[in-house]
Structures are given as C-alpha cells and as structure tokens.
C-alpha cells in the first residue's frame, strides 16, 4: 500500500497503475489523497472533465429512514441499460444494505447538485462507479460512527454488517434505521478516511447472477424496476398523468428546413375534442435541439389530436430548405461513391501508400455503404410540460436533462433555475433521446396554455420521418498485398455527413470525435497507411445513434479485412491477428486521435493485446476452423469502441431462397472490471439483435427531401425469428484495466460479422447495407 504524501492531480498522473486492483483498498487510499475538488475543476479527462463533473457526497445520494429503508438516488437516465439497478447496486453493496430494503429514486435534472447527467457515450458506470462507492463508504462510516457514539466506544471497535452495525466485543447491534437520524447529523468524513470494501467483502459487484448462456445462476439481486415493468406500473414519458392535461401532436415540415406557408385548420377544429391549433416556429438550419416548426393540434385526448392533425390543410414552403428539397438517397449515394474516388482531407498518414499500392503483388479494393437509420426506440418521443407564472416544469424521457432545461429556458427566455425537468424511465433511447427537441417543442405549445399541462406525443411516423438520422456513409478502401498476401498498404476514405452540421454551418467533414470512433484509431500494423475524409454534405438532421460512427467504420474495416484475407487465401482469424500484430498499447495521439472518448490515453490506450484476446476467445468458443455444411459459415468481426473491446462470431445458414438463419452468436467482450455482469450480458445480447437489424433490415431512404419509410411496416426491425437461435456471451475476466463502456461497444462488430458469415456460407459479398433481398436476387 502506497503511503505517498504527494497531492496528486488527476490530470498529470498515470491513473492506470492506481486502477489496477480497482476494488482494492490500496486504490482507494491513494485515490483519496487527491485533492478531489481541484481535480474536478482541472481534469482534462474522464468524469471530472464532463460538465458538472462528479459528486460523491453521501447526503446527495443516500437517504435512510427510521425504518431502515435505504433510498439511493440515481442521477443517470435509465433507458434499458439497467443503470438504475447497477449503480444503485454498487452503492448498496459498498454500504452493506440489504437489497430487499433498498429503493431507487430518480434525480431531477440538476447537474450542480448531482454532477453530470448526460447519459450518453457509455459513460455511466465508468464515470460513476468510484464516486458512488465513495459516497456509500462515507455513509457506512457515518453509520458506524453513530453507533460508536451511542455505545461510547471508538469507531474502530465497531463494524458495519448487512444493514446493521455491530460491536463484536459485546455483541450489541443496531439496524441502519436506528442509526440513520444520528448519522445524518455527523460531518461527512474526508475521503482520506474512507476504506472501500475488499473484493471478498462484496456481495453484488462483479458477481455473476441471472441467466448466463442458458443457465439460470440466481435470481438475486432483482432488478430495481423489474416488478413495475411486468405489472404495467413503470412510468415512462407518456404515463405521467397530471390533472387537466391537454394532448398535442404536431404536423412538421416533411423537408428539413421547410416552413409553413399557409394553414387551414377549419376542418381540424371541427374534430370532436380538438381545442386549438398552435403554430410552432422552426428555428431553421442548423436545427440543433430546436423544434422543426409546424402546426400543433391540441385536444382532450391523443386520438382527437391525431384526427385533428389529419384534417389540417398545410402548404409548406420549401424555399428555406434550399437543396434539402432535392435530397434523394440513390443520387446522394452515387455522389459520395464518386467523391470517394478522389483524395480527401488527410487524417492520418504513415509511409507512402501510393507507391506501395503500385508495387503491390495484389490490390484489393471495395466500397461499402451504410444507409440512414432511425433509432426508433419503442417509446416514441413524448413529453409533458407545464408553463406557469414564468416557470416551466417538464416530465420527460430524456438522456440529457441539462440540455433539456437549457433548451426550455432559452425558448421561454427564463432563467435555468425556473425550469424543472423530472426524468421518467425511457422506453429506449439509443441516442434519439439525447436530443431534447421534443420537450422544447412541448414547451412551445405549453406556452400557449398557461398553467395547463401539455402532453405532446410523437406518432411512430413522426419518429421515423423526423429522426435525428444516423449518418449515411460511403467508405472506400484499397489495400496492397505482397506475394505472401501480407498487407503492405492500406488506404481508407470515409465519407459521411457530420453531426456537427446540427450545430454550425455544415463542415462537410467528420469532426474529431467522429473520426476517433474507429477510423483513425484503426489498430492494424501495416507499413503504409493513408486515411482520408472527402466532404459529404448533410441534408437532414444527423444525430447520435447507438455506437454512432463506429457503425460505418467497423462495418467497412471489418468487411474489408475479410476481403483481404480471402484475396490472400488465408484464414480470416489468422489473417486479422497478423494484421493487428503483437499485443501492444497504442497511444491515441500517435494515430491522430485527440479524443479517446474523453478518457486519459495513459489509462485507456488502444490495447492490441486485449483486441487479440477477444478475437481468440470468440473464435475458440464458436469452434472456428471446423468444416461447415454447404450453405453454412462462420463470420468474424471485432472492434474497439467506448474504451472496450468486442469480437463477434456468427454461425449462419443461408438457404437457396436467400433466407438467413442465425444458428449461433459468440460474443467475447472485455470492458475491464465488471460492475454488474448480468446487465453487461443483457447489453451484449441486445446489441447483437440490434446489429442484426442493421445488417439485414434497417434503412431510411429519402426522395426529394422526404423520408420514404414511416412505420414498422416498411422500416423493418428485427423480430424474434431474426434473433440467433443461441447467443453466448463470453465476458473476459480482466479486473486490472480501467473500466470501459458497455451500452454501445457491443454493436459495431455485429453487422460486419454477420455479412462475413453470409460470405462464408454463400460466397456472396455484401457491400451495401441492409442486405434486404440481395441474397434472393
């Protein structure tokens, strides 16, 4: 145990060493020596660098009543990743609480009080694991101190047990509930006096439970919201029920940037239950999180509002939309494919690619396409807002309550303090609900109904046609191979509209964080590498979609690496292990990535050894190398994202009609220390199914600026028959590295692994997603 007395600053030490043995006491004692307040202000990386930083005050997060009911405040959005269970579990374990006497309370949007609440980027656990453990350890120490005071003994003679504090010398004990009031009066202990539980003292953290690859290990601890969900009691956005609520739906311009030229609402107002229509001014382009504008119909129930909307006669003005009104997917794809033939902005370069390509024994070249997709969470956007007396109160399923408050405050021109955002459960997020446009839109309607709550419901058509779309992409790759099939050069041109186009004049080039999602961080060891980013304009709202630009980058790179292996006549796994080279740590700055998911490159390098390990594990588990029957094949892909490592192998069968049957998926995943393995498995399983949809079905196309799909009849999502018959998740036991993300890193390798398996089964190469009917043609 180090007793260094240096005051260490978060920003200028290697925290990686400290994090080795994350759950051990030594890490905490040393960590507690940091001047934490200063670190929060000065941090360049991690939780401390996020707006609002982190908070570990037990009085903010942990409340115990006289009956011993422990309430733990969850400050992150619950959208299916299970954070309400996992983060509460982390605190409860450290505190020593009996799980049956623990409840979760959802924090309102208040970053000054609760620290950063933007639930995005697969950050919740890796940024909040340490603060929550410290908060709980401090609370436990306060309970112990309260008991020691009552018994007139020193605190080191008592210890906390499960939901009680005991004095072993006399056998006396007091329940947490009996101590709560006295403990509350005590000062919060300094961080340097905290000792975290050792691994052997933990009951939940890092422990396997639940359903593990078909075996039910235990049914404890139960999910926080499980019972409410299966009984229909869980409260999602639309389930907020306030007296006197009016219901609204909005007709929005079909083309991004268009406005209302004229509206005739006379028929709409005749619909039974319709009260009023309200014009919503759009803010033009770039839209950021602002409403698109249009006409709201307000009624006494949702159905009446929808019927009223159907009866509106609106003439749209496409002039302000500019050439968005000409946006057509086929033409756009062709234009990007053409642009991909010319050099673009150089992002990363080593060696002389052009010379190496000329000298190559064999050249491999391919162009890959991934279309627009809508996040389409099962709960469409919805919000309840009441504006009254210069104040606004919102109830909404949002990933970013702070941005929601700011948006409403800006719209109503009131102070942030006058806006309250209550966070409901999210019926799925996937990035859609990181954009609070739908809540701001509801506020705009509510402004016209002083004091009356407005529930603004998006229909599925609204959701799909007015999504913040996943960027369409073209990736063009070319590689040179030597006489042994070994890669000597790699040129990759990537083209996609940028999310930055939402917030500023369209840059037409990917932003640093977008390139850093698996493009410039590509870890292959090849002598000559040239990465370029030709321009691609945006014509619709582009936004985060689970895993974001990792999706096209992984799809193209992982498909292409397989094509290279095929061209070289080598086994795909052996070939990519050779491409990766020996296990080593690659510093992000050396590949031109200054982003690294906001994390310290010292602590989170690109670790090729970890990449190799997930590939080896997934292929071993899948029985890689065994002969398969005709029409059946294995496909591999892997990817590093959100500072975690994933490899996927699919066992796929394709029949003569082109029907794909997925017999099995083997997913190996390394996120470093695992807080709640049960929810990690569920995220991998879910990512697998979502990725199958990306490979086989998901596509939104545009014609003259208008989305051509609007509901699940044509925007196809995976259903139970599309799921693998068997999914096996293999979690890498790796407590020694720093904790990585979980919600997103499972997704990027899924589509390329599936397409590689389709190739193995059929010899048909998929270069354009989705697969759709390409196999039956």
């Amino acid at each position: 145990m180090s007793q260094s007395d240096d005051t260490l600053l978060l920003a200028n030490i290697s925290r990686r060493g400290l994090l080795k043995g994350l759950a051990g006491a030594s890490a905490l004692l040393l960590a507690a020596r940091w001047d934490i307040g200063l670190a929060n202000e000065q941090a360049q990386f991690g939780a401390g660098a996020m707006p609002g930083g982190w908070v570990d005050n037990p009085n903010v997060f942990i409340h115990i009543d006289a009956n011993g009911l422990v309430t733990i405040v969850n400050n992150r959005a619950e959208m299916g990743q299970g954070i309400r269970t996992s983060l509460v579990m982390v605190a409860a374990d450290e505190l020593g609480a009996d799980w049956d006497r623990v409840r979760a309370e959802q924090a309102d949007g208040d970053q000054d009080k609760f620290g950063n609440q933007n639930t995005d980027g697969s950050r919740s656990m890796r940024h909040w694991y340490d603060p929550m453990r410290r908060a709980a350890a401090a609370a436990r120490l306060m309970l112990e101190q309260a008991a020691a005071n009552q018994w007139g003994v020193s605190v080191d003679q008592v210890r906390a047990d499960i939901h009680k504090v005991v004095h072993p010398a006399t056998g006396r004990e007091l329940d947490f509930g009996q101590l709560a009031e006295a403990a509350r009066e005590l000062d919060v202990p300094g961080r340097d006096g905290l000792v975290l539980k050792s691994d052997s003292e933990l009951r939940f953290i890092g422990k396997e439970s639940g359903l593990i690859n078909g075996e039910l290990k235990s049914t404890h601890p139960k999910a926080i919201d499980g019972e409410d969900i299966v009984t229909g009691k869980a409260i999602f956005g639309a389930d907020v029920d306030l007296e006197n609520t009016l219901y609204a739906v909005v007709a929005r311009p079909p083309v991004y940037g268009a406005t209302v030229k004229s509206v005739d609402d006379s028929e709409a107002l005749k619909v039974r239950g319709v009260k009023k229509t309200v014009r919503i001014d759009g803010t033009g382009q770039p839209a950021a999180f602002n409403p698109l504008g249009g006409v709201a119909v307000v009624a006494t129930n949702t159905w009446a509002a929808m019927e009223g909307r159907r009866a509106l006669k609106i003439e749209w003005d496409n002039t302000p939309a500019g050439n968005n009104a000409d946006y057509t997917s086929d033409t756009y794809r062709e234009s990007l494919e053409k642009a991909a033939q010319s050099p673009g902005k150089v992002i990363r370069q080593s060696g002389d690619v052009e010379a190496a390509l000329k000298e190559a024994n064999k050249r491999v070249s391919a162009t890959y396409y991934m279309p627009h997709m809508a996040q389409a969470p099962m709960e469409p956007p919805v919000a309840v807002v009441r504006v009254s007396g210069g104040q606004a109160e919102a109830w909404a399923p949002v990933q970013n309550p702070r941005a929601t408050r700011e948006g409403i405050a800006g719209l109503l021109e009131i102070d942030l303090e006058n806006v309250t955002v209550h966070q409901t459960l999210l019926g799925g997020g996937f990035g859609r609900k990181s954009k609070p446009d739908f809540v701001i839109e509801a506020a705009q309607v509510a402004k016209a109904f002083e004091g009356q709550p407005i529930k603004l419901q998006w229909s599925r058509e609204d959701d799909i046609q007015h999504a913040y779309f996943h960027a369409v992409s073209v990736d063009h790759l070319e590689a040179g191979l030597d006489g042994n099939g070994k890669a000597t050069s790699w040129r990759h041109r990537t083209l996609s509209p940028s999310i930055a186009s939402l917030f500023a004049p369209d840059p037409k080039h990917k932003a640093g964080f977008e390139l850093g999602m698996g493009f410039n961080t590509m870890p292959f060891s090849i002598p000559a590498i040239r990465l370029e980013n030709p321009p691609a304009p945006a014509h619709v709202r582009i936004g985060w979609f689970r895993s974001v630009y990792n999706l096209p980058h992984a799809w193209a790179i992982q498909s292409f690496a397989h094509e290279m292996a095929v061209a070289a006549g080598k086994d795909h796994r052996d070939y990519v292990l050779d491409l990766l080279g020996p296990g080593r740590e690659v510093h992000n700055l050396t590949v031109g990535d200054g982003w690294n998911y906001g994390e310290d490159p010292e602590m989170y390098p690109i670790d090729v050894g970890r990449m190799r390990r997930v590939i080896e594990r997934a292929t071993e588990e899948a029985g890689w190398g065994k002969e398969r029957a005709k029409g059946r094949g294995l496909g591999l892909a892997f990817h590093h994202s959100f500072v975690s490592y994933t490899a996927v192998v699919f066992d796929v069968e394709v029949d003569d009609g082109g029907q794909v049957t997925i017999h099995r998926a083997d997913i190996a995943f390394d996120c470093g220390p695992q807080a709640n393995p049960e929810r990690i498995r569920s995220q991998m399983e879910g990512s697998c199914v979502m990725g199958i949809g990306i490979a086989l079905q998901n596509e939104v196309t545009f014609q003259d600026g208008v989305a051509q799909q609007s509901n699940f009849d044509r925007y196809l999502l995976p259903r139970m028959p599309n799921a693998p018959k068997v999914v096996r998740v293999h979690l890498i036991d790796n407590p020694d590295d720093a904790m990585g993300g979980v919600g997103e890193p499972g997704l990027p390798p899924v589509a390329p692994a599936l397409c590689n398996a389709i190739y193995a089964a059929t010899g048909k190469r998929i270069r354009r997603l989705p697969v759709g009917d390409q196999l039956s043609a």
Partner: protein
Amino acid sequence: MVNLRINGQEHELDVPDNMPLLWAIRDVVGMKGTKFGCGIAQCGACTVHLDGVATRSCVMPVSAAKGEITTIEAMSDDAVGQKVQQAWLDLGVAQCGYCQGGQIMNATALLKKTPEPETQEIIDAMAGNLCRCGTYNRILAAIERAADKEVSS
C-alpha cells in the same frame, strides 16, 4: 356512449365510436400499462386480451371491443399471467421495459391456448411483438420457463 368492460370493471365512456381502444384505455380510463408503439398493429406494445385473445388495441375501435378486456394491470391476478411475469423477473428479460407489457400479454394468451408450445410455435406467436432492446432470446427462454420447459437459449 361506449361501454367497456376492463379487468372486470364497467366503464361508460363518452368517446367517438372509432377511437382506438388503446387511447380510450390510456387517455380516457387512465390506465397506463398498455403502450403506444406504432398505431398500425405492427409492434404489439398495445396488446390486450379481448375475451382471452391477444388483440392490438391501437387498431381496434372501441365500438368493436365488445367483451371482456384484460390489460397488463390484471395479469398478477391471473394464474398463467403470474407465472409468465415471474419467469420474466427470474430471467431478467426486460431492458427498457416499454414493450414488455405487450410481450407478456401475448405470451400469456399463447400459453392459455397452448400450455406446452413447441419452440417454433412460440417464435411464430411472438413474431408480431417488437423489442428494440433486442431481448428476444430471454423472452423465448422465459416463455419456455413459464411453460415448465427447459430453458434452451
């Protein structure tokens, strides 16, 4: 006036005949367990039982909803429903949970009609219920568990 019998209780509603049952249940009766997902019977989030038959309430006009309507709120009072709910909890099926009420309603209707379904029968019967979180493997396993079959995936 439209009369609906929901979970054993009579409701007299002053709504147009063509209002979908979903909105009558949610906005007028005020029961929130039945969810809106698509409005065109493509996702199953709005599934209720009408005389025991799994029914998409988003496309059923209230005027046609003659009979006993059962919603997710009443599943705890139903022997099969309870078993299904318990299997869901045991296997940690839910992620976001939004679609799961509809999934449970559909699964319960299946098991009431076919207490020991073959795996393929379950897959066929559940194909109309979307889950964007992708919990299908656990849903399947939970239905098999509720049917006292071995967990197979």
